[in-house]
């Protein structure tokens, strides 16, 4: 037989062998998996055909397809498919790395490969390139799948190919990063098991670190803005939520490209030129920043590649098959996982700071012991490694200390006034003109909640005010105790469930955000000072001024709409009346309100000496069917169904009287925004408004009705289970402003069941008439409660009840003591 001589090229041969091996199957899985996700995300939409029917004639006029709607449709990221895909590519890269470099983790294979006539550098390079090529090809083909669908159903375009190319680059970079990290790890350890674990830890290291930092900041860094929802209404639906991970998304392979990928996932077609111009502003275009991100990460890949090659060359064959040979990786891996565990435990355990710290440190010890045992598999080595445990605890402790200092005062810094262009602050309550709000029907008193920040504080006075409020709150520090859930003897310094946020928009274009959770009652009350700010005054003026721009100001429009109804609610909430205003009177009333509100102090509004006279609630009934004619297309926020008393059909009969009662047995669950109107609390200091009412014979509308009360039920807000802030759905939602409620039995059947707010409460009941009378005198229609005070329900003999409020400072001592005794007998702790 003829001698066959080999023309050996070990490098090429190694490369080809690697491609032909199981690595190919890994590449195929990556291709099929990624391709499947991308195709399935767009399949429905891209193949969709919508029949267009004439709404008037009902005749089919055509078919709308994806081609009509999109320039291209490459990916649909609505259900976090992009994040999933990036995560899967990282794992795919790791698996490819383990497959390509598995040969150096076995004694048997090492005997062969290290004795072959090929330098280790070339051996590494050939194997590395094979895996890298498979990843790149898999990604390219996976992206080509939806591209193909686009070509079939939509057509080719420069935008499509540009987007597709970026997708390929981004996905390939993510996969190559994880793959290269794995190559480096495999070159440093003895077994596939360790290789897999350490590769996952290092590939997701930024995610671990940022998550841990985020959790520690949540608990330890007073004022940390990361991860909080800043309800700044940049546009109607855009809530700024800069988590730490988002802030540093470019440093995490999992998220580095997500924004760009989402931005270019598809491009809609806009036929209308005017809308195209609007849309053009919103279209995401790939810019230098996006491409720099890709190349920066590729540079990282290259750096890790050279490190991996160096480690491979230096690698000792004798570690193959032995676990736990790399002490550096062991300690790094254990440190990362134990720090993560520490952060989770510390931030989530519902314990005081130092108790939680102790448990979290115990968690560190447990994680260390378990992981080291798993990674070493040798009792002797495990015992030796115990020497590192104190080091781990010290490092964790140091990290805790650094965060405890508020990152060396980072969070308590307040920008200098000369650097600030404008500011936004949280609204801790509402005042009719300012603030959107909603409430819970289960609350004892009407407790409108607010989750909004108000922007536009620009004047020197306002910025000074905002900084003062911020400085005060920043100075409070985080509260290590859990006294929020217990009765307190010092109401002002008790922490209340709340979230107060500040945003400064600096002149240099940057934004500084701070978020404070659970501040003191006193600090929250101080925040009410913003109602004396230039900004609030401006908003009041814009809504109530006779020169208000009705085309732009919704509230101004609603107030001056021909169909608006001005309702009066007396301070004792015994009925709802309607003020019958002509146009001049309406304008005069609004002007009086404007002037009064422009001068009103926050104390006059929220801590009045006497109970407010009542409420003027303006309901815009400009919708067809209610007899009103809208002047403009008013966009009224969603309201509860109109219920003018006990489920009867709404009737608004005409009247020549200055005012008349339209419901003498009202039931309403909210006071302010009753029936979704614009509400003005009328206090005695509002002289012009009071004068107007008197001059127009409307003041008596606020007189109320004398009723015979059979009993008064008292419950403290501190204990009341329906008032407790923990019942609120979101920590952003809070308000300690309360206002009255009223209930009455439904008219259609006096036997019908109706619900009184205090029915499910254990209350202190008073039946003594003198005491009842005295309590009535002390009761308030509305007040800023600061989390204390009493809900007092006056039950009348005519089956109506009026729920009012008595501040803690005004309750007679004997009654206060009696109620407190009842409270303490029922519970000592309000913890949810």
């Amino acid at each position, binding site marked *: *037989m003829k001698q066959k*001589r*080999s023309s050996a090229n070990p490098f090429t041969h190694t490369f080809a062998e690697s491609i032909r091996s199981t690595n190919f199957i890994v590449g195929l899985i990556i291709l099929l998996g990624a391709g499947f996700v991308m195709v399935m995300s767009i399949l429905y939409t891209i193949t969709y055909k919508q029949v267009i029917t004439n709404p008037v004639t009902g005749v089919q006029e055509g078919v709308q397809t994806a081609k009509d709607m999109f320039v291209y449709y490459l990916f649909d990221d609505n259900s976090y498919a992009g994040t999933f895909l990036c995560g899967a590519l990282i794992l795919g890269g790791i698996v490819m790395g383990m497959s390509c470099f598995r040969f150096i983790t076995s*004694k048997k*294979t090492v*005997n*062969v490969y290290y004795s072959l006539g090929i*330098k280790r550098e070339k051996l590494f390079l050939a194997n590395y390139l094979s895996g890298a090529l498979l990843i790149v090809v898999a990604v390219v083909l996976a992206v080509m799948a939806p591209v193909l669908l686009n070509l079939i159903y939509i057509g080719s375009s420069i935008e499509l190919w540009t987007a597709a190319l970026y997708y390929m680059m981004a996905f390939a970079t993510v996969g190559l990063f994880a793959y290269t990290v794995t190559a480096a790890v495999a070159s440093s350890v003895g077994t596939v098991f360790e290789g897999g674990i350490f590769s996952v830890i290092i590939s997701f290291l930024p995610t671990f670190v940022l998550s841990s930092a985020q959790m520690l900041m949540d608990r330890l860094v007073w004022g940390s803005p990361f991860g909080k929802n800043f309800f700044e209404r940049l546009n109607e639906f855009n809530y700024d939520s800069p988590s730490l991970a988002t802030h540093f998304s470019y440093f995490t392979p999992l998220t580095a490209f997500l924004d760009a990928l989402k931005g270019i996932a598809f491009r809609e077609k806009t036929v209308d030129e005017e809308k195209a111009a609007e849309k053009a502003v919103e279209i995401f275009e790939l810019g230098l920043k996006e491409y720099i991100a890709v190349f920066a990460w590729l540079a990282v890949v290259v750096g890790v590649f050279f490190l991996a090659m160096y480690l491979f060359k230096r690698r000792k064959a004798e570690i193959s098959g032995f676990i736990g040979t790399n002490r550096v990786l062991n300690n790094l891996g254990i440190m990362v996982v134990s720090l993560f565990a520490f952060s989770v435990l510390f931030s989530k355990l519902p314990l005081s700071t130092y108790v939680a710290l102790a448990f979290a440190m115990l968690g560190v010890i447990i994680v260390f012991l378990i992981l080291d045992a798993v990674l070493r598999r040798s009792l002797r080595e495990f015992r030796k490694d115990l020497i590192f445990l104190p080091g781990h605890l010290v490092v964790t402790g140091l990290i805790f200390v650094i965060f405890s200092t508020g990152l060396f005062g980072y969070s308590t810094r307040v920008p200098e006034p000369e650097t600030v262009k404008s500011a936004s602050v949280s609204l801790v309550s509402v005042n009719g003109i300012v603030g959107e709000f909603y409430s819970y029907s289960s609350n004892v008193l009407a407790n409108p909640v607010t989750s909004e920040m108000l922007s536009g504080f620009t004047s020197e006075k306002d910025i000074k005010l905002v900084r003062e409020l911020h400085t005060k709150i920043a100075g409070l520090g985080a509260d290590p105790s859990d006294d929020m859930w217990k009765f307190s003897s010092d109401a002002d310094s008790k922490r209340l469930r709340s979230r107060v946020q500040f945003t400064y928009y600096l002149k240099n274009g940057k934004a500084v955000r701070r978020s404070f959770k659970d501040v003191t009652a006193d600090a929250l009350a101080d925040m009410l000072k913003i109602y004396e700010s230039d900004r609030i005054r401006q908003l009041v003026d814009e809504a109530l001024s006779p020169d208000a721009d009705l085309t732009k100001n919704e509230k101004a429009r609603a107030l001056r709409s021909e169909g608006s109804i001005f309702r009066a609610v007396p301070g004792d909430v015994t009925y709802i009346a309607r003020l019958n205003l002509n146009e001049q009177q309406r304008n005069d009333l609004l002007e009086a309100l404007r002037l009064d509100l422009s001068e009103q102090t926050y104390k006059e509004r929220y801590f009045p000496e006497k109970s407010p006279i009542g409420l003027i609630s303006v309901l815009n009934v400009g919708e067809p069917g209610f007899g009103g004619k809208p002047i403009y297309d008013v966009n009224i926020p969603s309201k509860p169904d109109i219920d003018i008393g006990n489920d009867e059909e709404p009737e608004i009969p005409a009247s020549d009287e200055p005012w008349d009662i339209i419901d003498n047995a009202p039931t309403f669950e909210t006071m302010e925004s009753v029936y979704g109107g614009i509400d003005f609390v009328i206090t005695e200091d509002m002289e012009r408004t009071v004068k107007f009412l008197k001059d127009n014979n409307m003041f008596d509308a606020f007189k109320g009705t004398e009723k015979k009360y059979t009993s008064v039920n008292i419950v403290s807000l501190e204990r009341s289970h329906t008032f407790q802030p923990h019942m609120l759905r979101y920590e952003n939602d809070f308000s300690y402003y309360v206002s009255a409620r009223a209930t009455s039995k439904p008219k259609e059947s006096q036997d019908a069941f109706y619900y009184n707010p205090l029915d499910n409460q254990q209350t202190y009941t008073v039946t003594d008439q003198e005491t009842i009378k005295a309590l009535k005198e002390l009761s308030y229609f509305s007040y800023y409660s600061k989390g204390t005070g009493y809900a007092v329900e006056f039950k009348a003999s005519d089956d109506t009840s009026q729920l009012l409020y008595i501040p803690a400072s005004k309750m007679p001592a004997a009654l206060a003591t009696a109620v407190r005794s009842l409270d303490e007998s029922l519970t000592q702790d309000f913890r949810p």
Partner: protein
Amino acid sequence: MIEAVSVTKKFGDFTAIENLSLTVPKGSIYGLVGYNGAGKTTLLKTVAGVYRPEGGKVLIDGEPVFENEKKKQRLFYVPDDIYFKPYTTMRKMAAFYKGYYPNFSYDTFEKVTSLFGLDPTKRINGFSKGMQRQAEVVLAMSTMPDTLLLDESFDGLDPQKRTVVKELLYDYMRQKDVAILISSHNLHELQDLCDYVGLINGKRIVLNGSVKDLSKGKAKYRLVFDRPVTEQDFLSIPHKRLNIDGSIVTLMALGQPEDAYARLKEMSPLLIEETVLTLEEIFLDEMEAEGHEAKKIFG
């Protein structure tokens, strides 16, 4: 030629071999013996370039072997724990090695495969342990190496196959003037094969040399007498390992073989027969001379 010069290899705190030196000339077979765990495999792997020594050096034809592509393309290492790719056949492994060895010969591959009666198209994981060893030897020979390292390669081979392998190695060595280094814990396996032997004990080579030199000055005789004899009768003859079994005597005579023979002849035995010293006998003798207890080494 293989030269290990003061080679030291450590695994962490443990020193496997220390200051170990040996030479395997071209056109010779060197048998490396020692108990289990003595360091034979460590030395072989260091010679093969799998391990990097902490001290000393390994040269092949005067060049360091570690990371030396050209030298390693002419070297084949048959490990104790042999490796084949999963679900592969001998043909596929041949293709694998062909890519790394410029002198790979399919002709040799076919011939040796046929010699062992193996099916090159069948999956190797279906072979018995002995057949797998044969397959590895086939592949080794097919690469036409100048240096061949075999670690416990007779394990699992039946006596007939052992003979075939020995003959193959011997013929190859003679034809191609190669250096072959074989390790074994069993001296009998290396009998009649090795030109040189070395004994590893206590991390070093304690005995090293050609078989001829090691057996110089020693001869083994078997004598038959027509009368009973005693130890006293042999006092005048320098000897060791005298064994008297009735009228049959075996002993190792020391000194020049001719003198020994003449003196024994003077005792008028019915039969005097010179036999070949086994390697074991040579080693035992040498070890005693060195002061090593044979039992501790050979169990």
